[in-house]
């Protein structure tokens, strides 16, 4: 064998090994969480709020955090839709003629996407102080909504971009206004993709801990109105894991399983919808 083919073989094997290693490590993560969490998993974990002495290893579950996370992420996602959908449509219908301006908006959105959650958290905190709010569900929702808006807009924008221009022209030529084109043609045509974008943002909202650290507070109860503080799953995991008591840490692993399952469900649903979308769309390339 000459040097050339030796080198070829070497790198082929090396890259292959790296890939295998990568997937082994990533499977290892899931396996570790499952292995440590399943023994501590119980029906109480998902049906009960923390009882007295929960943080010393006594009775209770993390229902407060599960419900809190859903309230928070759900509320934030709803708020974000009201901003994101119009903006994404506006970019692809009203601004479609101004490509260089659009490129700049997209650059800005990408940069906002990359801003760390903790910075949004600190910013949400300053907003909260400015408006005289206390750490509450409302403050958390506002912070997370601001954080997921860029993600949602960019994801929706990527979907709307693929809609053929001819649809717009046809719609205009039939005499519809731009609003009608936007909501009745574009939004409907892209509906599955838009749903995937919303699920993506929802998953980010549920999984994030840093942004709500300052703004949502923490409580053992399920919040009853917007001005009460709320618990979230990632923070609940974090707090339980820093406990010196073994039984409490065990439950953090179980809570980690719950969070992972929720996230997996969201991303699988998103995938399923976009696969369906590909199957039923008229032309294969959109």
């Amino acid at each position, binding site marked *: 064998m000459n040097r*050339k*083919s030796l*080198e*070829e073989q070497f790198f*082929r094997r090396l*890259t*292959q090994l*790296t*890939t295998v*290693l*990568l997937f082994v490590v*990533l499977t*290892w*993560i899931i396996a*570790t969480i499952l292995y440590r969490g399943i023994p501590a998993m119980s029906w109480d974990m998902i049906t009960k709020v923390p009882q007295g002495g929960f943080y010393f290893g006594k009775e209770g579950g993390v229902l407060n955090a599960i419900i809190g996370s859903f309230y928070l992420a759900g509320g934030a996602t709803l708020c974000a839709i*009201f*901003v994101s959908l*119009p*903006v994404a*449509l*506006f970019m692809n219908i009203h601004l479609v003629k101004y490509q260089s301006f659009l490129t700049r*908006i997209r650059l800005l959105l*990408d*940069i*906002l996407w*990359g*801003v*760390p*959650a*903790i*910075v949004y*958290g*600190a*910013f949400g905190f*300053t907003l909260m102080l*400015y408006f005289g709010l206390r750490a509450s569900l409302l403050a958390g929702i506002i912070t997370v909504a*601001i954080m997921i*808006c*860029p993600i949602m*807009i960019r994801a929706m924008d990527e979907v709307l971009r693929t809609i053929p221009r001819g649809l717009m022209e046809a719609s*205009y030529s039939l*005499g519809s*206004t*731009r*609003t*009608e084109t936007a909501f009745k043609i574009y939004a409907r045509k892209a509906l599955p993709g838009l749903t995937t974008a919303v699920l*993506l943002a929802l*998953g980010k909202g549920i*999984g994030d*801990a*840093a942004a709500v*650290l300052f703004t949502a507070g923490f409580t053992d109860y399920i919040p009853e109105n917007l001005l009460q503080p709320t618990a979230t799953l*990632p923070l609940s995991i*974090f707090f339980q*894991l820093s406990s010196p008591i073994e039984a409490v840490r065990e439950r953090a*692993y179980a809570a980690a399983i719950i*969070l*992972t399952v929720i*996230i997996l469900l969201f991303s*699988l649903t998103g995938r399923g919808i976009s696969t369906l979308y590909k199957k039923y769309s008229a032309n294969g390339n959109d």
Partner: protein
Amino acid sequence: MISALKIKQTGSRFWVDRISTTWMLAGLFFILVVPFAIFLGLLIKALPLLYDQSLWAILSGTEWSPMRGNFGFLPFIVGSVLVTVLAVCFSAPTSLMAAIYITQFAPKRFLKLVHPVIDILAGIPSVIYGVWGVLTIIPLVAGLASWFGISSTGYSILAGGIVLAVMSTPYVLNMLIEVFRSMPIGLKEASLSLGSTYWECIKHVLLRKGLSGILAAFALGVSNALGNTIAVLMVVGNRVQFPSNVFEAGYPIPALIANNYGEMMSIPLYDSALMFAALLLFVMVTFFNFASRYFIQKYEV
């Protein structure tokens, strides 16, 4: 150019159009204002500290004792940089190799198979990676340290770097796969037809052609790692010091902010210092993002 036809200037359709266009514009305006609002909001909060001490003194100060009014940020900046550099050292070669294998050597259906998996992994919250780090990486690092004859609890810069590397790998890998996939097939064909081996083609043609895209993907990985909070906070040890080796604890900026929010209101200038930390992080990450996105857009053209 196409444009909406002139419709009757009265009637409900006209008003619906007007109102919704205004709403859309307001939304766009809102989102364009956000980055400036973040910058200004944090700056205003950080001003009391900046009035009290000079910017240079804050950035280069080494002593952190809020009770005495000393806010030196250097240990935190060093901590952030060290953890990030370690993370990139681990994740950059791995994800590049994996991307080369997945897009160049492996059969096509392999990519179809792993793409969703990578996507899902990129969506797993950082607290989960943190839990994994505490469970597996901490003992591993402690063992490794004792093998080197250093005593360490395992909560260290190295542990932070490893967890961050694992976390950012799916994210970087995803972008690298895009870079390789968007490369024109003709380049590869031309190179192969001139008698190069696959590896020579990758080394001399694809890597060179994709260089800016690859660097941009790495840079996004860096900014991702710089800003990560919870996972790092859980494994890095959080001690204010200059680590003399990778087995010692460090204290990156996001961990500083997250760890001290509870007590910051009771000590003068403390809240201002933490908001300054957030501002610093924002500026660093935005700069990195801007540079890399700029590269990507240039590269895509």
